[in-house]
């Protein structure tokens, strides 16, 4: 068998043989894929070669997956650079919007579906940040333009104390999973990350201490949560 394989290698590889890696990766056209399938069915030597390719394919994926992910520094650097270009953005907002419309039109349906869930998460995150901003300014008040006295015409809009917890998500938690979890617990991200922890604020302000403790226990048991603790 080994001798036969060597004989194949010494010859120029056939068109079908050259296509085997793409067949293993599932990226051939239906027509080419059918041709390869037929060749594999009638040529055991080619089938053995294909098994070797499948092994390479699996190990290449393993190798790449083991490389991990970039730190948050890369994202911070990117968005700082984008923020440093306000003039260009302001000047060409209209054209930029239409350009991005075309850009996203090129995304596949699967990508768009994924993006939609990520977008939902971004909205939740934004809501959390707005909430955090309001909280950091203390109890908000409304004033009429003609009367700035902080007495009778102001109305306190400060949020009633809502349950609050610090959560560390599992390193492999996906944004879609986090968004789903926030939805499930009616929570929003109010702050963070600080040392890997996010501050979560829960919508239900009428929760008793025991109920909140139970909620935290359930949260702690979630697969994507590494740690969940109540904050004062």
């Amino acid at each position, binding site marked *: 068998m080994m001798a036969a394989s060597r004989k194949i290698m010494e010859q120029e590889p056939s068109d079908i043989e050259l296509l085997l890696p793409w067949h293993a990766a599932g990226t051939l056209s239906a027509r080419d894929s059918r041709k390869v399938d037929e060749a594999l069915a009638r040529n055991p030597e080619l089938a053995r070669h294909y098994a070797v390719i499948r092994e390479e*394919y699996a*190990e290449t994926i393993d190798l*790449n997956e083991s490389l991990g992910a970039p730190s948050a520094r890369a994202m911070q650097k990117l*968005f700082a650079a984008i923020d440093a270009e306000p003039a260009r953005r302001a000047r060409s907002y209209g054209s930029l919007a239409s350009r991005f419309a*075309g850009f996203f039109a090129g995304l596949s349906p699967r990508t768009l579906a994924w993006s939609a869930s990520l977008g939902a998460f971004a909205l939740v995150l934004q809501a959390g940040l707005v909430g955090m901003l309001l909280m950091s300014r203390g109890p908000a008040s409304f004033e009429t333009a003609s009367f700035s006295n902080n007495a009778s015409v102001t109305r306190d809009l400060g949020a009633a104390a809502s349950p609050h917890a610090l959560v560390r998500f599992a390193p492999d938690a996906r944004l879609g999973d986090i968004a789903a979890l926030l939805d499930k617990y009616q929570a929003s991200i109010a702050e963070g990350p600080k040392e890997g922890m996010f501050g979560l604020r829960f919508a239900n302000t009428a929760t008793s201490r025991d109920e909140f403790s139970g909620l935290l226990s359930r949260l702690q048991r979630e697969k994507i949560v590494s740690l969940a603790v109540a904050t004062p």
Partner: protein
Amino acid sequence: MQVLYGRHHVRVFRFGLRLVRDEQLAEDLISEVFLDVWRQAGKFEGLSAVSTWLLAITRFKALSALRRRKDAELDEESVGSIEDTSDDPEVTVQKKDTGSALRRCLNKLSAEHREIVDLVYYHEKSVEEVAGIVGIPENTVKTRLFYARKKLAELLKESGIERGWP
């Protein structure tokens, strides 16, 4: 941009890291790639997948970064042909395991060969897409991968692993 970044940054990072072999540099690449995307969104005509476009920009940036590195001082051609033949302390143990040996030998391929193997197997790019990213004819894509795999088989053989091919 956040959506686009969230969707693609890990694969862009891994592709860049496999090319430049330096995490810091690969992270810098990501910022540069997505900033270029931000600046050049109008140039994207939807003729290829977004990921293909991103990988093409990443490849260009990676090669530019490698050329800039003072300690390397290599042109693209020599960078493409360089091989990492160094062994690490785990080699002896890994040699007994085909999977580990395969991964170790994949790391030893030249940048040119690593690139094409990654694009086809990990990034799941078609012949046409790889040709677009690397800037070579489609037939060259097929033969380059064939010879990359042949080199991989030779490296495995040197490690004492025969797989029945070639």
